[in-house]
């Protein structure tokens, strides 16, 4: 299908000829992972252009789909007949409000950029665990849970006021923006619609376009910039900032890990807490896959069982001392053991900065084979999420023993959100994409994860999107899928917002 000339010309009039293309070469690069191609790719520069494109798509009965930094495949075309909005020209930080501690960004600001600007002002933000290469819009994709979530919460909770181009082309300003023209609150005075515009894991491009959003930012007790020495990939801070400390603590059992993590949350000593397994620690540190294997073996030999990474950031010398003492007490109580290579001063600063800037997610998930998958838990009570994600470990072990997955350990990673107010967990699998048997593994893990979640009443996990998954979960969860379809139908009467990864109106 090629766009009718009339439609193409109308889109071209909106963005200018340099910012639209239907060349097979251009379209192909947006379809590397999922083969369906867009009919055209547009590069709008502002909300007005986004709105105009959306309205044209409604008028001409073609679908549209927007994405920003685009790592998640959710932004790819789900089928033919779709116009792409690549939002990379909308790349400004619009405001950093130090007094009221929020930041307003357009979709193509990435977290590394936002964090760098915030740190200069003594502030910091949560960064999605996918990495600081991802969009800093708090509702760009998925849940926005990340390394800093123990102290910096996550996307849904951090999101404040929002500008939204609805699927039929209205501009809606939510929260305080809607009534006062200000960004400081997501839920009013004025319309909120937070549940509608977010859902459980975001509409993933299926419910219009989010063009600007504010998010809550947090106190940063560290320096305005980390002084990094060395040349890529061998970066290391020249010194660890005063008051900062990093440890990887392993425990004799998952239960002990869970209890210790709970205590860390209750005492609010964690700046970052991630229940990484040795494989992720190894991948984070290694600058190549050979090193990765060596560190993995070394770390596996040194740990006593599942563990967590913790970074503490003291606000004063006495606060630092307090946090250190509390951690030691928790380690004593639950038989925690520190992984020496992490606390080694030669490595500690590098680990610390990679985790704070969240630069190594690509190393951790993609470097091994260029592909990864797994099970993504929801956001609920920490212990519940830990139990849910833990149940998949035997399946992963079997798949590893069958030679279908990379043998990188079977401990899932778990994490605290808001000092244990909530928790989250994931199970990563990595495999050779040229191996047909390996390529079946993600589906097996997914099926098992869904069965576990439904039968075990663990709620709706984070990997649930698209019609089939919602239809599977909905009947067990208050028929939410029916409501979701009503939302979709109400806000998108022409089904213009392509929703393969959200939910479609196929009654």
């Amino acid at each position: 299908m090629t766009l009718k000339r009339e439609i193409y010309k109308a889109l071209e009039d909106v963005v200018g000829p340099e910012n639209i293309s239907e060349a097979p070469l251009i379209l192909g690069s947006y379809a590397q992972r999922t083969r369906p191609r867009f009919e055209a790719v547009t590069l709008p520069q502002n909300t007005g252009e986004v709105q105009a494109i959306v309205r044209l798509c409604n008028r001409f009965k073609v679908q549209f789909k927007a994405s920003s930094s685009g790592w998640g495949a959710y932004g790819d075309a789900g089928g033919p007949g779709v116009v792409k909005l690549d939002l990379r020209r909308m790349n400004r930080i619009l405001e950093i409000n130090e007094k009221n501690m929020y930041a307003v960004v357009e979709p193509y600001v990435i977290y590394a950029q936002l964090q760098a600007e915030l740190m200069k002002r003594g502030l910091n933000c949560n960064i999605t665990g996918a990495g600081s290469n991802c969009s800093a819009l708090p509702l760009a994709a998925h849940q926005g849970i990340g390394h800093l979530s123990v102290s910096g919460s996550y996307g849904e909770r951090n999101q404040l006021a929002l500008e939204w181009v609805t699927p039929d082309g209205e501009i809606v300003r939510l929260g305080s923006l809607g009534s006062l023209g200000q960004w400081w609150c997501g839920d009013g005075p004025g319309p909120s619609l937070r549940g509608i515009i977010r859902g459980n894991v975001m509409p993933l491009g299926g419910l219009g376009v989010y063009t600007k959003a504010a998010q809550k930012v947090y106190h940063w007790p560290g320096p305005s910039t980390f002084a990094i020495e060395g040349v890529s990939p061998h970066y290391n801070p020249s010194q660890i900032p005063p008051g900062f400390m990093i440890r990887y603590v392993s425990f004799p059992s998952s239960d002990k890990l869970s209890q210790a993590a709970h205590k860390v949350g209750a005492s609010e000593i964690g700046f970052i807490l991630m229940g990484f397994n040795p494989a992720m620690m190894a991948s984070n540190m290694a600058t190549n896959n050979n090193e990765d294997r060596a560190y993995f073996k070394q770390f596996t030999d040194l740990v006593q069982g599942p563990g967590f990474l913790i970074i503490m950031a003291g606000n004063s010398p006495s606060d630092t001392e307090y946090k250190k003492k509390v951690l030691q007490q928790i380690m004593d109580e639950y038989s925690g053991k520190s992984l020496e290579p992490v606390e080694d001063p030669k490595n500690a600063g590098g680990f610390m900065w990679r985790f704070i800037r969240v630069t190594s997610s690509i190393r951790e998930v993609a470097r091994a084979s260029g592909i990864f998958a797994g099970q993504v838990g929801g956001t609920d009570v920490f212990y519940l999420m830990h139990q849910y994600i833990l149940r998949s470990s035997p399946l992963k072990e079997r798949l590893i023993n069958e030679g279908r997955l990379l043998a990188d350990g079977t401990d899932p990673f778990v994490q605290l959100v808001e000092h244990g107010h909530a928790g989250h967990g994931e199970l990563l699998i990595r495999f050779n994409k040229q191996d047909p048997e390996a390529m079946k593994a993600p589906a097996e893990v997914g099926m098992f994860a869904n069965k576990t979640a439904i039968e075990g009443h663990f709620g709706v996990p984070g990997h649930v999107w698209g019609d089939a998954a919602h239809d599977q979960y909905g009947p067990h969860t208050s028929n939410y899928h029916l409501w979701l379809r009503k939302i979709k139908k109400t806000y998108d009467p022409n089904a213009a917002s392509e929703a393969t990864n959200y939910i479609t109106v196929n009654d």
Partner: protein
Amino acid sequence: MALEDYRSDMEMCCRCSICKFVPLEKLKEIQHSYVCPSIARYNFHTYAGGGRMGMGIAMLEKELEYDGKLLEVVYNCQMCGACDISCKYAMDMEVLEPINEIRIKCVEDGHTVPALDGVINSLRKQGTMVPGAKARRGEWAKGLDVKDITRQKAKVIYHAGCRVCYDEDMWRVAKATVTLLHKAGIDVGIAGENESCCGGRAYQMGYKEELLNQAKQNMELIKKSGAEILVTGCADCYCAFKVLYDKFGLKDDLEVLHTTEYLARLIKEGKLKPTKKVETKVTYHDPCHLGRLGEPYIHWEGKPVPGHIRIFGPPKEFRRGTYGIYEPPRDVLKSVPGLELVEMDRIKEYAWCCGAGGGVKETNPEFARWTARERIDEAESTGAEAIVTACPGCERNFKDTIKENGSSLKVYDVVELLEKAT
């Protein structure tokens, strides 16, 4: 190696987009956080390193027809390698190599662009990538008492390079280099009108055969001369002699040094003593082919080890820009009394390109100037009075851009400032 040999590298791309930015650990502010001129200027993902990986696969799969758009994307890239370095912070995959192979494939399949065909014709006929007659190549050295290595033996050969030989504005850099080497007591010679293009830029443009022809011709001349060390002040030439000739097994045991490396060594050995004050505040621009692309070539032959992790037997060491030439030019500048060196945001392995590379200055001068303008703005933001570089290609493009767009920023080669101080 051919494009097909990099299929698995290209398939590793996970579309994370770190190829578009400076290494994220080093990102200090939103300004100057982009590293790839091509995606920064043209915006469609296709222009990024990751997009080019997809293009390479599509070409192998014969999903793309050669057309104007394909060649426009292929050649609107300076081949600066910044995407390669940012990617390899995290990944074990080649990026710049397949991008270069895409160009080689275009040339081999007979799909070239007229602007480059003209340049290559000049190379074939006159041995130069810059318009000029072979007989005029040695004119820059008139009046200099320097050995002609085609007739006299010298331990060191100074290769001036096309840009210097045919751009009178650059002659003073070459003259200053020879003068400094003489002051240090170095037995140096030149090939004069017998010097020929290194072929490096031709390779970046996709003309592999031309590189090989030039390499064979140059190495024959150097062998005959008996010179042990080749010194050049051009980053492209440096990369060609040191890296590309080695890649194709044509370098032998020739030691290749950039002038800044050699001069830094001579200063350290006390053979050159900068004593005169040059009171100025400058910032240094790392040329791509001296910096991140100037590290030694690493020979490797092997194959993937079967399994779920991408490792090779024998292990493959990727070139990640770690061992580029970053400190010698800075050491030379720091040796100049009175000179204050301030750094831009994007330096060393993640320096922003000057804009001239990869044939862009020939095929799309507007893009070359746009890229240079970005760098000039960045240099101005440091408060420096001058941007100093170590490559005539960068210098020319900066000067052309300043002339057209205006700026009070001066442009120097490192050698000029050292000469003033010595």
